[in-house]
């Protein structure tokens, strides 16, 4: 109090610290009502607040993270599989020439030309041209069985 008086005197103020009563009135019974209001709001906010257990929250986070990681992995596998399939559908790029020849030799009876060539290649293939000489005809008919020809006609 003395400090304040001295301070005001130093400032040169004539404000009298003794006359500090407020110029307003507080409504009668206000503080009792205010206390009740505060406590009601406090209880409401406590009962409305979700009960968050950090342990549960952590395990939930782990589960979500795991699912997310699995989804990312699955997507990654699918994406790269699609990509490699579109570039080299049969994986032929990975085979060397010797392997291809070995495969063809082993399965020559089961492989037809249309499995190895496109339609355009087939059309332009010399084997389907008209034979030019008797020798060509002989080569073509070398393995033909007369019995088969009778069945055709």
């Amino acid at each position, binding site marked *: *109090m003395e*400090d304040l008086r001295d301070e005001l005197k130093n400032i040169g*103020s*004539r*404000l009298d610290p003794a006359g*500090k009563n407020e110029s307003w009135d507080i409504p009668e019974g206000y503080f009792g009502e205010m206390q009740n209001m*505060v406590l009601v709001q406090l209880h409401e906010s406590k009962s409305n607040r979700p009960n968050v257990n950090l342990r549960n929250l952590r395990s939930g986070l782990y589960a979500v993270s795991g699912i997310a990681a699995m989804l990312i992995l699955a997507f990654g596998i699918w994406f790269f599989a699609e990509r490699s399939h579109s570039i080299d559908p049969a994986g032929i790029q990975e085979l060397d020439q010797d392997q291809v020849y070995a495969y063809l030799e082993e399965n020559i009876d089961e492989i037809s030309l249309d499995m190895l060539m496109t339609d355009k290649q087939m059309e332009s293939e010399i084997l389907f041209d008209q034979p030019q000489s008797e020798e060509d005809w002989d080569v073509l008919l070398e393995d033909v069985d007369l019995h088969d020809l009778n069945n055709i006609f």
Partner: protein
Amino acid sequence: MMAAEKDEQILAMIKSGGNPERGYRMLMDAYQLPLYRHIRRMVQSHEDADDVLQNTFLKVFRNIANFEERSSLYTWIFKIASNEAFTFIKKNNRHAAFFDKGENADELESRSVSTSQLNGEQIREMLHVAMEYLPVRQKQVFSLRYFEEMDYRQMSAVLETSEGALKASFHHAVKKIEDFIKSKNLY
């Protein structure tokens, strides 16, 4: 009972969890009047002061478990109240800046000045009119120092401002109030 002892008793009652409601009521009984007066000087109307006071107590009770007692309970509560009042004023734009009259300044001013012989009550009203012209932070400084007679160390903790700046602010506030009253030929 000394204020500090009473604060310890209140804190123990609330934090121990035995009977927190009794502790809440004890705390409100101890602080409601000084807090109400401090807030009311900032916001002027009773309804606004009621809003801010309720919010202050709610904030106090929701955070009291985390109160580490580095400062006194009194300082901590006044800090919350000052921040709540400041936020309320800024949010509702009800702050009466210097030379920008507050909502009930006209009424008080005309009532006070119309009487040539001012009594004590009218002088107090005039003081509150003059306070309406202060910037909100300066008003808080004046309120805490002049009305609550808080020392600068505590004020520094409440308003998070250096003691030197607070002294300067109080000095300016007093000068502005004096100038205002002088301009109304009250001296």
